[in-house]
């Protein structure tokens, strides 16, 4: 409630973050794993009789690697930061204030990573072999170091562990329960992606015999990792908070769950992606000469889908918080939500960004929607509110808002009956139903009896009343 909510039409701020993050996750993992790949390829190339040829290929790989990791990888990394401050300024502010020096240390790593990569790349033809191997090694260690740091902040959001707003225990927050499994998963994934990027660059080689050798080399990077990731994911899963596990294990997450819990869906996706990677890589190993760019991209796509799925479900498990147990996704602090007087008082009066909307108008409802709902839901796009409320009657809507936090995936509603009524009227107006917010705060039973209607009837009791645009005279 401190900050305005970035109200991005049919997309939603969360999806903007996700789109940037998806690109970044893939490339940044390639960026670190690729470092190890460079080291091993450097050493390998010098032991082969046709080392110079391998090194020419390695130079191509390094060019591809440099351009993609800096232009797209580094920039989208900054992009995540740009987008999270728009999507959740409150949480970004908390993370920045708690971990500013961790971030600053990560930046030192980042600066080092970049500079060493330039020294490696621009010195490719001049540096001594030992120097090149050393630079590649230094690059890998530094790049992995940046992961070691950022992983603490990333995992903190889902599993803050013993950290609280009062103790501000940075060590507890950083080395939180999810830290080590996540670090291992990401590290292993890096090797996998480095091998897959190797396929892509190798697929462009014209000489088939040579291509086959490079492909066989890259195969060894993919298979162990693809087998390890599902097991490590299980370990990570065991560190999650109980409420997250129950959200993921329940069938109600998302619009439809049925018998398919989020956990099952995640497990199936992870299992399928891992297995397909192994199978595809074995095909590459068996027929290395046939590997073409499309096939290599297909394997990267499989990996990307697996990663996307994992990140998607990890984000899903964070509901309704942005920082688990501390801050709700819409910027409401859990400590504030525990105070009923604070929670149930008039929202419009205490909201900083209320503007001057008149109470009991649709504008009132829209502002409540924007400040409390729009950080996760769009009106009629991604995570559409219109769709989710398609069966609502006005009475049901008001009642539901009062108990939605019991579902486990929604934060509590902030505001009094008037705010609820305004929000319901606004939400129903989105699908063309006209509801006068005035009528929702009255006793629905009395209204219904006066009009001779069934109080439980679907959407009848309030039909025919005019929408109040201007302030209602009381």
């Amino acid at each position, binding site marked *: 409630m401190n*900050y305005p909510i970035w109200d991005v039409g049919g997309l939603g701020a969360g999806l903007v973050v996700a789109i940037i993050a998806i690109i970044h996750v893939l490339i940044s993992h390639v960026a670190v794993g690729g470092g190890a790949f460079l080291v091993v390829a450097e050493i390998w190339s010098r032991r082969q009789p046709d080392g110079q040829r391998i090194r020419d290929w390695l130079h191509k790989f390094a060019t591809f690697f440099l351009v993609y990791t800096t232009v797209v990888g580094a920039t989208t990394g900054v992009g995540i930061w740009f*987008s999270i401050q728009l999507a959740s300024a409150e949480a970004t502010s*908390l993370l920045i204030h708690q971990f500013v*020096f961790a971030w600053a240390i990560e930046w*030192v790593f980042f600066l*080092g990573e970049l500079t060493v990569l330039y020294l490696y790349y621009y010195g490719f033809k001049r540096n001594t072999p030992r120097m090149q191997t050393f*630079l590649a090694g230094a690059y890998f260690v530094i790049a992995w170091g940046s992961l070691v740091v950022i992983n603490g902040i990333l995992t903190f959001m889902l599993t803050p562990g013993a950290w609280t707003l009062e103790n501000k225990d940075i060590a507890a927050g950083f080395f939180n329960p999810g830290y080590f499994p996540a670090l291992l998963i990401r590290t292993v994934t890096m090797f996998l992606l480095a091998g897959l990027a190797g396929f892509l660059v190798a697929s462009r080689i014209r000489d088939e015999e040579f291509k086959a050798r490079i492909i066989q080399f890259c195969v060894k990077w993919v298979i162990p990792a693809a087998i390890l990731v599902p097991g490590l994911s299980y370990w990570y899963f065991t560190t999650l908070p109980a409420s997250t596990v129950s959200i993921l294990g329940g069938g109600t997450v998302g619009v439809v769950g049925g018998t398919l819990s989020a956990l099952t869906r995640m497990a199936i996706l992870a299992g399928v992606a891992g297995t397909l990677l192994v199978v595809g890589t074995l095909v590459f190993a068996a027929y290395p000469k046939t590997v073409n760019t499309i096939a290599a991209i297909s394997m990267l796509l499989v990996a990307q889908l697996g990663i996307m799925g994992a990140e998607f479900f990890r984000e899903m498990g964070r509901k309704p918080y942005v920082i688990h147990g501390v801050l709700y996704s819409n910027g409401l602090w859990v400590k504030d939500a525990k105070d009923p007087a604070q929670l149930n008082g008039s929202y419009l009066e205490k909201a900083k960004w209320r503007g001057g909307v008149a109470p009991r108008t649709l504008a009132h409802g829209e502002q409540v929607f924007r400040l409390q709902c729009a950080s996760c839901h769009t009106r009629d796009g991604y995570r559409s509110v219109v769709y989710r409320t398609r069966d609502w009657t006005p009475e049901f809507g008001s009642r539901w808002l009062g108990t939605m936090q019991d579902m486990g995936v929604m934060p509590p509603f902030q505001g009094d009956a008037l705010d609820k009524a305004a929000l319901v009227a606004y939400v129903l107006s989105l699908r063309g139903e006209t509801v006068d917010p005035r009528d929702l705060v009255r006793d629905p039973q009395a209204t219904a009896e006066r009009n001779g209607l069934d109080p439980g009837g679907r959407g009848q009791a309030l039909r025919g009343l005019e929408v109040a645009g201007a302030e209602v005279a009381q």
Partner: protein
Amino acid sequence: MSTALAMAGVLAAATASGGGLPIPSPDPLGYPVPPILLQALSYFTLTLHFLAMNLTVGSVFIYLWLRIARKQYDDRLARYLRDLLPLGTSYLITFGIPPLLFVQVLYGQMFYSSSILLGFHWILVIPLVVFLYGVFYYQKLVKNPEHPGVLLLSVLAAMALLGVGFFFVNNITLSVSPEKWMGLYAKSPGGRNLNMDDPTLFARWLLILAPGFTVAGVAILFRGVMMLKWGLTEEGRHNHRIAVSVAVLGMVLEAVAGVWILSAMPDDLRSHVTSAGLAKLLLGLGTAMASVGLVLVFLGRYKASWAYPLMASLAFFLALAPLVALRDVVRQEQLRPFFSLAEVPVHTQWGMAGLFAVFLVAGLLLLLALHMMVVPGLIAGRRAELRESA
């Protein structure tokens, strides 16, 4: 219809209610170290960011000019600048991170609010940077960089660079004008706003971009020295002529921007800048060091000595740093009615700060050592290449 209604209501009230500005409260965690330290770190890194940014901006424009004018030696100078562009961009991004981090620690509640209000343009910065960065690599790696299509891309990349600067200036100026916020939020909650009615907007934009020519001029001065040392006298002198012209051009534009910004400022703010001791000192220091730098560039022309470009670089760093600090002084003055750094509690994290210092020093030492081992070899190689082609 409902949106229109909402807007009308919000707008009316926003203009009517003067008192309760929607300024978020500072983060409950407070500052991790006394703010003066954060400010110092921020000034230092922001100065480096500006230098890298200026190098890139200046290089791309001089590169385009050389490509289109095409005189003797220009082709090789253009290639030099073209090869600088991706490096400049990557360091402008890298050195942009810490000041952005520290400004969020110091003024988060102001900065986040204005970022959200400009949200659309603010996030547009990312695709723009990916685009221009990609073009800078592309024109370096492509076989025929003089193809009109590639040149067009380069022009677009230069425009994108200017655009990014423009959005940054918008955000920084809006973050100190909370009185405009509610109106802009009502106008476009999706952040399709710009802070166009700020009187100093364009002056500030020019102010941060203009030194680009000067910084690029120093970079060209370095190349000229190298040419002279390698015996390519003609080319070195030619480079130095260009270096002096663009350096002077940059400083003239900077002076224009400075006068413009002072005249566009609200009166009380201007009198603060021209009368308060600290502000006056910073302004004077900056101007003096910039003049020293310009003189050094002028004196260093046609001389095969590293001392001049190195000293000029230092002078321009010392000229920029006080101006960066002055910028913050002005911001604090503008924020005085709403917020001051002293209000925020400090919960110190000395351990983390110390750890950072250790990593920073170790990292910089490592990089320095690696540079000393690698770079001389690279320069020698480049020299051999040039000899062959000459």
